[in-house]
């Protein structure tokens, strides 16, 4: 008997306590659930990590609800091959057409029917000057309703692309016109806000770089590269199907087993010795948090979602939760080959041990020939961005005020398979603040948005998710305290995203942040209390939600109304 089977046996024999009052007390739910399962072999088997057997009580079960695959099983050979992202330099007043469509992608020797914008994965890289406004005509040519959300952009509410809040979903065959204004320099991205767990995972995302009129906004760099990080879950040679009625993998999110950079499993870049390469990094994955480094090359973090940092810092790695962006400069001082790796400490739930997990995203090859313009000295200088400090100074007086709103992040489950419940119960011995990989994909797969409800709960009223009716006046400076309850049934980190505004992470676990940057997405680790200061200057109805696509699909969202 392996270790895990032994644990399950213990849990069956002992009247176990359950990890949370949030768990619905429905003793028969597991049994009912098993009997009610539809059996559909399309999704089996779920790939498991090395050395992790499937949980005995779960073998043979499949998620509730039917399955969905893009294109409805269409032969990928009939579809156009996806193209790499093309740069679209746009000026104020320009119009673009953005078409969501089916494409063929070749990944690890297999061909899949997936999605792309304008046939590209990632979609076109839109590069605009700060303060430009563009018209984007969106055409939905995929087999699901869709829309486009312009993530992080403080634009007019009508163009936010949040179905159910600012517009109706665009039906297959339909179109919608967005007017996108870019008030802040930085790195942004666009993606659908409809079934993100499917549409984004299948390739519907693209970057936007907004350039400051100040040519010296960032320090000098020899080259610039936009990297969209993403992962994909495949079986031996098929995509693992998606839930038809709502997301599956609702506990932890659909964590892929193939890591992709700009849609490809292997990224390659050639630079010269001494080159300073600027990377615009975006985490477009549904659920995975990255810890990225460039083969030990020196790395400097200079900006994040919506602005530069107050001051630049050298960092050993860059951590990106879903939807977060960072701008980093990397100097490749010596010739050779540098592996770009995502390195984390996974937890082997069977052995109760941490195990290093290293995925290589690609390589940077550094030529022996030196770079023509050597920016080594500028790279070694940590710039101080006094304009950011001056801007933040206007808000510092609010840092110590009591929170205007306190939200607890938690979860409620019902009808999960009995083995899942028992397993989770035992697992409450310890939860990592960030669960880097999915150690238990089989039970994760069986949890759908029917069984799992992720919750933002207003501590003051007890109201949850969309029942929270939160209005603030335009121009308010709002302090929001988020507590990620570690005693819930299955605590997880949550990257919380606020549409249409900007915010500062002013404190984590009571410790003030020392280097400010304007953000639209902030990671809330398990057990942590994070204070956000929101500059609520943009009127409208704005979504506040977890950016793990499956958590969003399982209810973890509310709306902040910024009244005129």
């Amino acid at each position, binding site marked *: 008997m392996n270790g895990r089977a032994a644990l399950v046996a213990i849990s069956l024999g002992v009247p176990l306590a359950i990890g949370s009052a949030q768990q619905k007390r429905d003793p028969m739910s597991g049994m009912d659930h098993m009997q009610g399962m539809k059996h559909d072999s399309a999704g089996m088997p779920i790939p498991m990590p090395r050395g992790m057997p499937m949980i005995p009580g779960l073998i043979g079960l499949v998620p509730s609800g039917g399955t969905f695959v893009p294109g409805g099983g269409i032969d990928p050979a009939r579809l156009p091959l996806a193209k790499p992202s093309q740069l679209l330099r746009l000026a104020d007043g320009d119009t673009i057409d953005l078409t969501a469509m089916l494409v063929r992608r070749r990944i690890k020797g297999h061909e899949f029917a997936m999605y792309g914008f304008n046939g590209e994965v990632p979609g076109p890289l839109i590069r605009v000057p700060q303060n430009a406004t563009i018209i984007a005509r969106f055409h939905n040519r995929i087999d699901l309703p869709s829309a486009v959300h312009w993530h992080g952009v403080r634009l007019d509410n009508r163009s936010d692309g949040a179905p159910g809040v600012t517009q109706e979903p665009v039906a297959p065959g339909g179109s919608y016109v967005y007017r996108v204004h870019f008030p802040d320099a930085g790195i942004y991205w666009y993606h659908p806000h409809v079934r993100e767990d499917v549409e984004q995972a299948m390739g519907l995302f693209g970057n936007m770089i907004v350039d400051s009129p100040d040519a010296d906004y960032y320090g000098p760099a020899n080259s610039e590269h936009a990297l969209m990080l993403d992962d994909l879950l495949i079986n031996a040679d098929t995509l693992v199907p998606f839930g038809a009625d709502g997301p599956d993998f609702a506990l932890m999110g659909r964590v892929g087993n193939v890591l992709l950079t700009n849609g490809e499993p292997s990224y390659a870049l050639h630079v010269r010795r001494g080159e300073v390469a600027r990377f615009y990094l975006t985490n477009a994955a549904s659920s995975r948090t990255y810890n990225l480094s460039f083969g030990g090359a020196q790395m400097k973090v200079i900006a994040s979602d919506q602005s530069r940092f107050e001051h630049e810092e050298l960092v050993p790695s860059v*951590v990106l939760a879903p939807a977060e962006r960072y701008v980093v400069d990397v100097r490749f001082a010596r010739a050779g080959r540098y592996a770009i790796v995502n*390195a984390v400490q996974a937890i082997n739930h069977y052995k109760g041990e941490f195990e290093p997990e290293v995925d290589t995203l690609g390589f940077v090859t550094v030529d022996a020939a030196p770079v023509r313009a050597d920016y080594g000295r500028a790279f070694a200088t940590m710039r101080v961005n006094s304009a950011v400090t001056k801007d933040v100074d206007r808000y510092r007086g609010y840092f110590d005020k009591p929170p205007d709103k306190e939200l607890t992040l938690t979860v409620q489950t019902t009808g999960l398979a009995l083995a899942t419940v028992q397993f989770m119960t035992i697992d409450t*011995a310890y939860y990592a603040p960030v669960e880097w990989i999915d150690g238990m994909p089989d039970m994760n797969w069986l949890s759908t948005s029917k069984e799992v409800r992720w919750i933002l709960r207003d501590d003051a009223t007890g109201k949850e998710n969309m029942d929270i009716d939160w209005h603030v006046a335009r121009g308010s400076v709002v302090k929001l305290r988020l507590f990620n309850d570690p005693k819930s049934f299955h605590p997880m980190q949550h990257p919380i995203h606020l549409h249409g505004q900007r915010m500062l992470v002013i404190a984590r676990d009571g410790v003030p942040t020392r280097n400010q940057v304007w953000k639209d997405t*902030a990671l809330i*680790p398990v057990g*942590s209390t994070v204070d956000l200061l929101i500059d609520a200057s943009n009127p409208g109805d704005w979504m506040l939600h977890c950016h793990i696509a499956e958590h969003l699909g399982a209810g973890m969202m509310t709306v902040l109304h910024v009244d005129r």
Partner: protein
Amino acid sequence: MIGVRQLSLMFAVPLLIAAGPYDIPLFSTPKAPRASGSARLVFAQSPFGISVTADGRAQYDVQVAVSGLPSPSSLGAFRAYVAWAATPDLQRWDRLGPIANGTTTVGHVTLNKFLLVITAEPDSAPRSHAGPTVLHGTSPSGWLQSFLNHPMFRGITG
């Protein structure tokens, strides 16, 4: 087969985990029986939402709150109390910094699992630990060390 009654018990009893994932209860030793305290792990400062090393180990500062520590000199030729993070096999000891009664923040810890040990030392920056242990605790991640540390087996009964 598991009975309905047993299942009801499973769901009816709230699990009383001793502390959140960031808290470490500290236990005293016979050297300082009146000492007591706890520690809280907070992420070290970082430009990101969390602080980790390049290989993904969490990087914490430790807020140590203690009371009842006697004067170090009452235990021998000692002048300071020092906090250490030791690997579970006690092969590696990382000095975190001096502490005193009250709340002190020391750091950084970058071990996946560790014991938090407070010893009396001749000075506040000793190269290695030598004096007697007065308080100790286990990082929450250390609960994974043994299934016997599951809350169920730590005094929580149905």
